[in-house]
């Protein structure tokens, strides 16, 4: 069998989000990968220029449905920096609580997806059931399971009561017990070892060169964590460890995330034990003076980078978002080379990709088509065949 080009996607290549991988195969072996993104553009950066800072609080949260809080935290930090606003200590602690709860539910979700990709659906069922504990805590405090709408410029909108505090600590006890079990499973279960060990290799040198971020970089032994390197919120106060492994493979990425769950539990216990008294919000002006600010946070998937340029009005001049998935994309292309086709889904899933986050720049109400035009299934099928034919594939 000669060289074959295999288009995978854009309909959920590994998970339920659109992205296109064109994989060049020699038999079962992957020899080259080309990635096409942009299928979920919503034009958020452009849209933000025509919204006030208060409106943008809610827009920025909708960049992603999983790490939404990391985005809104970046946004508020940027605005507060230009305003020169110092937020109350209690608000900082509550924000950090949400950042870590978000990491917990994201890592549980990912562990389930990883299990699903390698045909280990029991793990998927278990972790997603446990994830509900975190979701319930988030809902209890903020009123929402996702897109919590907790942040305001100058602080947070809802307080953590004594009852909430107790429930959070109870939840952490339960999750710690469960994670002990997942740790056992991740290190000893043959199904995981067979599919994850020595799969999707990313050497430390390559990871550095391609600027990989988050658990993907840490599983290649790179000691990088924005919470430690460039501390924000209340992280300077909190003792915790940065988890790394040096196996450079998918298994390492599993181990890093499972161990990070323990660190998050540790951080949340510290926060709940040391929650300062006082106000949760300070008053902020509506207009933001001219200036620029950079904020980056350690989102569950890695460094989430935001840049704000303000112009003295109620609306931003330019807002830029770089999500961790885009930063990890060159690394994925590298990991996929010289692997087997059957390993492609788990390798792609191992960076915990989030296409909704990654594609965000353009608001497209209509292209060349007439406004509001509907394309039926048959036309869409023909369009697809034509699209691939133009690029040299036969139907």
């Amino acid at each position, binding site marked *: 069998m000669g060289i074959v080009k295999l288009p995978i996607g854009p309909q959920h290549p590994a998970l339920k989000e659109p992205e296109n991988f064109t994989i060049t195969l020699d038999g079962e072996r992957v020899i080259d990968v080309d990635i096409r993104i942009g299928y979920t*553009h919503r034009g958020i950066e452009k849209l933000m220029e025509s919204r006030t800072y208060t409106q943008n609080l809610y827009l920025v949260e909708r960049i992603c449905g999983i790490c939404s809080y990391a985005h809104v935290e970046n946004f508020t930090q940027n605005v507060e920096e230009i305003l020169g606003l110092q937020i109350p200590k209690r608000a900082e602690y509550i924000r950090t609580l949400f950042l870590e709860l978000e990491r917990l539910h994201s890592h549980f979700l990912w562990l389930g997806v990883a299990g699903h990709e390698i045909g280990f659906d029991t793990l998927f069922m278990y972790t997603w059931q446990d994830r509900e504990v975190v979701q319930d805590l988030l809902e209890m405090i903020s009123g929402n399971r996702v897109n919590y709408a907790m942040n305001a410029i100058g602080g947070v909108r809802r307080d953590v009561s004594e009852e909430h505090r107790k429930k959070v600590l109870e939840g952490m006890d339960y999750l710690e017990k469960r994670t002990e079990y997942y740790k056992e499973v991740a290190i000893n279960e043959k199904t995981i070892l067979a599919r994850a060990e020595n799969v999707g290799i990313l050497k430390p040198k390559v990871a550095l060169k391609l600027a990989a971020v988050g658990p993907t970089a840490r599983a290649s032994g790179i000691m990088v964590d924005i919470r430690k390197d460039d501390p924000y919120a209340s992280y300077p106060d909190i003792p915790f460890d940065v988890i790394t492994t040096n196996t450079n493979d998918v298994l390492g990425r599993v181990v890093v995330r499972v161990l990070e769950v323990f660190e998050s539990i540790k951080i949340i216990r510290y926060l709940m034990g040391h929650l300062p008294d006082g106000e949760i919000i300070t008053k902020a002006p509506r207009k933001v003076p001219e200036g620029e600010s950079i904020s*980056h946070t350690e989102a569950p998937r890695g460094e989430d980078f935001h*840049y704000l340029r303000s112009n003295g009005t109620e609306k931003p001049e330019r807002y830029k978002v770089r999500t961790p998935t885009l930063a990890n994309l060159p690394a994925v292309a590298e990991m996929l080379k010289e692997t087997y086709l059957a390993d492609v889904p788990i390798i792609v899933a191992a960076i915990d990709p989030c296409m909704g986050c990654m594609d965000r720049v353009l608001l497209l109400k209509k292209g060349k088509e007439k406004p509001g035009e509907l394309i039926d299934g048959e036309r869409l099928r023909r369009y697809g065949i034509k699209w691939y034919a133009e690029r040299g594939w036969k139907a």
Partner: protein
Amino acid sequence: MTTTEELITEVLKGLPVQVKRQRRMFLTVPRNDLIKTMNILSSELNIQHLSTITARDTGNDLEILYHFFLNGVVITIRTSCPKNDPTVDSIVNVFPSAVLYEREIHDILGIVPTGHPDLRTLILPDNWMGGYPLRKDWKQPAEQEAEE
């Protein structure tokens, strides 16, 4: 000042380095000196992590910001090019991780990184109508129609 900040100040001595606040440094260079500056960052400061590239429309010019991260310090190199000649040297030979970010600014602001190996569309659709959506004079088709 951390040791990293001192090191950066030392290496970039004589250049207009601006310290915005702790762990945030900016350096403005003319576009002709961009590659020279990138080489200094790469070889003398041993910077490897390019966080991203931001570009924006400032009226007559397009401003480009290269955000690097080194031991807790975000250092940003600022340069610009005029709108009637929107070219700037590609930095992919120095920082390979710039590939996608340069394609992104090419898509949305029409900045051409000369020497870039692959300038295919990254995030705009294949049947994109043309134009650079993040330029201030770009209008949504609906807005444009309403005006006409």
